[in-house]
């Protein structure tokens, strides 16, 4: 029994894959927080496809695979930002146009020169079992850059993610920050491409952050949970994929979806159990709505509980009750 469980660790390709999944999971989990909170979830999907197009282009032009992918993904991110800036073209449309066009270019190039179709299949669907030591170093370098960048620019990043316009007024260089973030995102996507696959990167970016958002109402906690969860999902997904003999990227994403579902059910049940509805007070504000009593909605139950204007508690009483001054 134990032998079966430990069996994969005997293989170097598996150990390499595990390290890669751990680092890529953490990296995507960390960066995903900013993407999810900005409402740009589609960007990971788009940029990974652009990066694929860039990789093919690079290969065709005899440039380094990584280099072509990074440059093209970064340029795509800047293009999307410029296109969607004045609001006429929404960012989801901009992502769709720019990245699909570049992806299409890659596909067109592949179909012309058929002999390297095989090697790009790994990039599309992820082939964690082919991870080389060079890949590991690249991933570790990107993870380090992202983590150090996050630590150094935590404050301006938080502010400009929350409210970009106000951040600019408070002297935060939002444009430069956006460029820096796009570059790190492009790097992260390239680092993840061979592990989870172009088609799965979007989920690797979004699932841990969304799950963390369900579990926490604090930005810093969300960052920590998302990073750890990403790493955990990467490792466990990869390990399971060995035993199920399934594609590693897909297994990691399925594990993520399951984790999200569990978190969703957990939060719903917790709300059901602790939620109740009655008129209550915060300082001089009185109102009624379904709420829980943990942390931020704490209030005492002593004091007058007579609803304003003779209504019983309930959300309908909200409008009348909210600004009644209490004796």
């Amino acid at each position, binding site marked *: 029994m134990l032998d079966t469980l430990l069996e994969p660790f005997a293989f170097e390709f598996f150990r390499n894959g595990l390290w890669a999944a751990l680092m890529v999971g953490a990296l995507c989990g960390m960066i995903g927080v900013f993407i999810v909170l900005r409402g740009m979830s589609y960007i990971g999907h788009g940029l990974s496809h652009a990066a694929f197009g860039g990789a093919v282009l690079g290969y065709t032009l005899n440039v380094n695979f990584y280099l072509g992918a990074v440059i093209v993904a970064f340029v795509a991110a800047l293009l999307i930002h410029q296109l969607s800036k004045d609001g006429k073209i929404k960012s989801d449309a901009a992502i769709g146009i720019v990245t699909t066009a570049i992806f299409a270019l890659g596909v067109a190039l592949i179909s012309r020169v058929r002999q390297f179709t095989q090697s790009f299949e790994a990039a599309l669907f992820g082939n964690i079992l082919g991870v080389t030591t060079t890949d590991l170093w690249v991933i570790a370098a990107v993870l380090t850059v992202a983590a150090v960048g996050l630590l150094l620019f935590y404050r301006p990043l938080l*502010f400009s993610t*929350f*409210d970009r316009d106000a951040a600019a007024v*408070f002297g935060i260089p939002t444009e430069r920050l956006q460029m820096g973030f796009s570059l790190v995102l492009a790097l992260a996507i390239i680092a993840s491409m061979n592990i989870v696959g172009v088609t799965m990167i979007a989920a690797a970016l979004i699932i841990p952050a969304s799950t963390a958002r369900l579990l926490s109402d604090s*930005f810093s906690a969300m960052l920590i949970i998302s990073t750890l969860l990403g790493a955990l999902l990467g490792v466990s997904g990869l390990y399971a994929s060995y035993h199920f003999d399934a594609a590693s990227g897909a297994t990691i994403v399925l594990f993520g979806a399951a984790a999200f579902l569990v978190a969703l059910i957990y939060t719903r049940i917790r709300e059901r159990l602790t939620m109740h509805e009655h008129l209550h007070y*915060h300082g001089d504000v009185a109102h009624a709505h379904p709420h829980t009593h943990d*942390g931020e909605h704490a209030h005492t139950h002593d004091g007058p509980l007579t609803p304003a204007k003779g209504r019983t508690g309930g959300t309908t009483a909200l409008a009348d009750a909210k600004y009644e001054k209490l004796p």
Partner: protein
Amino acid sequence: MVTPLIELRDVSVGYRHRPVFTHLSLSIDEGRFAGIVGPTGSGKTTLLNTVLGTVRPHAGEVLIGGRPLGRSRPGEVGYVPQLETVDWSFPVTVEQVILMGLYVNRRRLPWPSREERRRVAQIAEELGISTCLSHHIRNISGGQQQRAFLARALINHPRLLVLDEPTSGVDIKTQHDVLHLLHQLNRQGITILLTTHDLNAVAAHLPWVICFNQGVIAEGPPREVFTPEVLSRTYGGELAVFDHQGHLLIAHATTGS
């Protein structure tokens, strides 16, 4: 002598070559409490953004305290965004929102220093929101939300406070409270510039009004500025002005007849 704190000299602003206003000259004296009114799309927010430096003019000069924009002390200009534009589901507490005001100081470490926490606690105390510092921004009342963002702007002791529609999205009682609070701040020497759609609130609370529609139509104390003639030039339609027991009331002319 009163010196202008804000000075716009022959400023033209537009988006993508579509001008919002051209050749605008406007100066606002230090110590003013001024409200900009005008119809939707008349360029009020654009004017504020020009003063704040987030919209760059095609031509002309913007001076704050006699210095060109961008050369002022960080935090010298405080800004309170329109509440409707805030992402209320974003995972931050009231304390963290106020702390953002201190990000102008370029401390690198993510967590706040003891001194920073002390300053947040102090400003929260002054604005009466100490009890909700640890609350998520979604879970406090509209008035408290308004004060949280006011605290973020005030924590740097600004000379100028700019607010975009502080009276919208909150009920009439909160509106009154906010304007009252702004009055107190103004008495402490802070110059205030805000936009609003509520002419009656301006008439009741603000000592100075600027009627704006792609340019300054008129400015001065509401009692002098709010005439049917000026209002019709600002808004296009007919507006009636009543004097109700010493209070100025503005209404649609049609509703009066």
